[in-house]
């Protein structure tokens, strides 16, 4: 069971274990579902502004890792720090308010609301007056912010349509807009490119590469072409464990990775 032991962190990443400087730091995270360890003993640190890919075959525990980071699940054991603060037991909304964002592998939107209302909700969620009973005016700053975001993901033409009526690719774009609301400091993208057309993929890559440099992210992506183009470091997961970390080009050439990951991906 404990075959691939976590290797010593590659020196190439220049990462020390000083916690204060990290955007995200996981120590010994394990999540059990009954007797199944979806992730076991995951230790990981990401610098502010760092962009990292998490790769692994189906069921490797990548989404579960995200769920632990955002607080959707409480980890069975382990410690999570977000910009130096111990958030292990925080409810999800407290982590979001501290600048964490995420997208969902399976779009999780408000199908009965319009595009602009979805984005407006996202902007409202990370600002004050969430309980306001006063309707926003047309010149409300948050309305503007929401419109800007809608434009950023090329959905301006659809902004008054109900989300349930959107095409699949457009819904994926909207997922990303929700994750960019407010002032994100760190974003978790869960397979944002899955099911997108080549054009939409190009748009996605350009959104990711033009994000302000202080915003770091982790991206789960099966498409190596997308993943390796937008990150500077890669973490490989298998059976709930991290078994390799390195720069994209190191990972790409690694025979073990080729066998395990590409083998697993084609099953």
């Amino acid at each position, binding site marked *: 069971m404990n075959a691939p032991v976590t290797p010593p962190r590659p020196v190439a990443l220049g990462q020390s274990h000083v916690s204060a400087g990290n955007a995200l730091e996981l120590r010994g995270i394990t999540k059990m579902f009954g007797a199944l360890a979806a992730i076991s003993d995951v230790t990981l640190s990401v610098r502010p502004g760092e962009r990292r890919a998490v790769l692994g075959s189906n069921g490797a525990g990548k989404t579960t890792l995200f769920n632990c980071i*955002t*607080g*959707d699940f409480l980890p069975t054991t382990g410690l999570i720090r977000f910009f130096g603060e111990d958030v292990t037991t925080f*409810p*999800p*909304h407290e982590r*979001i*308010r501290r600048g964490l964002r*995420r997208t*969902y592998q399976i779009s*999780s*939107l*408000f*199908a*009965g*609301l*319009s595009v*602009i*209302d979805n984005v*407006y*909700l*996202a902007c*409202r*969620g*990370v600002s004050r*007056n*969430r*309980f*306001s*009973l*006063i*309707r*926003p005016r*047309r010149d409300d700053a948050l*309305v503007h912010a*929401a*419109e800007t975001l809608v434009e950023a993901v090329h959905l301006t033409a659809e902004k*008054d349509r*109900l989300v349930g009526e959107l095409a699949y690719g457009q819904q994926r774009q909207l997922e990303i807009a*929700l994750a960019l*609301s*407010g002032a994100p400091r760190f974003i978790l993208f869960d397979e944002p490119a899955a099911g997108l057309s080549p054009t939409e993929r190009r748009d996605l890559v350009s959104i990711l590469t033009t994000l302000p440099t202080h915003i770091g992210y982790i991206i789960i992506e099966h498409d190596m072409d997308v993943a390796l183009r937008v990150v500077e470091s890669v973490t490989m997961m298998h059976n709930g464990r991290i078994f390799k970390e390195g720069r994209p080009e190191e990972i790409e050439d690694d025979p073990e990775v080729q066998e395990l990951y590409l083998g697993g991906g084609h099953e």
Partner: protein
Amino acid sequence: MAMTDQAPRFVNRADQKLWFERIPAPWWALAVVLVFLPVVANSFWLFQVMGWTFILGMIGLSLMFLAGYGGMVSLLQMTVAGVAGYMVAILGTSGTVTVSLGLVWWIVIPAAFLIAALFATISGALAVRTEGIYTIMITLAIAAAFFYFTRQNYTIFNGYSGFNLVLPPQLFGVNWREPVPFYYLSLVLAALSYGAVVYVSRSPFGLALQGVRDNPRRMAALGFNVTAHRVAAYALASVFASAGGILLVWQNAQIAPGTIGMSAAIDVLVVAVVGGMRRPLGPFIGAFIYVLLQVFSPDILGFFGFSAERFKLIIGLGFLAVVLFSPDGVLGLWDRWRARRRQQGGQAGGGVA
């Protein structure tokens, strides 16, 4: 809970018209009818039928707000109304001088609203500890506990007999229990409640509540405290229920455990479901139907040779029919009928407003 509502899109509504131009003609007609009703209707209609409709509608509205926008079907709203009504009797004046404190109205009424809101908030906080269908069970249990408590407790709630001679204050020299003043009082409060729910449904809080209804996990991942929003909804809904409860105690001039019993709690649910729980207008329509049935059932039943007591049977069967065949209530039927007409009359161009 499958209660997805085509929520109003509120950000940047395209229309530039003035607010009164946006109100469709049927609404104006309805307003005119309601305002001038006292010219034609007798006091029985004004006081009993319409007064009771508005009251029941407001209490049903508070349920509609929780269920339609928040996805929480609460059987507690009659109890909240009852708490406010009881507070008016206990803090103000009543025939039971040993219990009633006899405070002035401008202390009594705000205090009644506050205490009812507190009660609703605490109960709501308990009810939101679980989700979905549990809400009905927990709120029903709390409602029952309060009912039995008022019945057995004499020091505060004067037990079985409750309070009588609870009268509205003689404000501006008007006797508000006279049919016409009471009609206008309840009409204005009902209209205000209705307007408030419509307005709030498109405010950040209302929109967030609908988000919580549809996808609580996503709302948490957007930075919303889902539990707090749910509890706050209970607090806000208590305002409409309390207004109804205070009117109710004034209309009957009395309040007793029977007012807030289980069948009353169920009646509120019936009213909201029959009218339609997705839109604020639903409960008022449901209430109107309910009151009409109640008022005229003796005649109808007598015509078929039944005793007038079989009213509940009609209500029960009608409720079953609605739940089985038109889960969205009368308004749902109306929507479907309109959709069909629009389809048919598509080319004819005859659009209904």
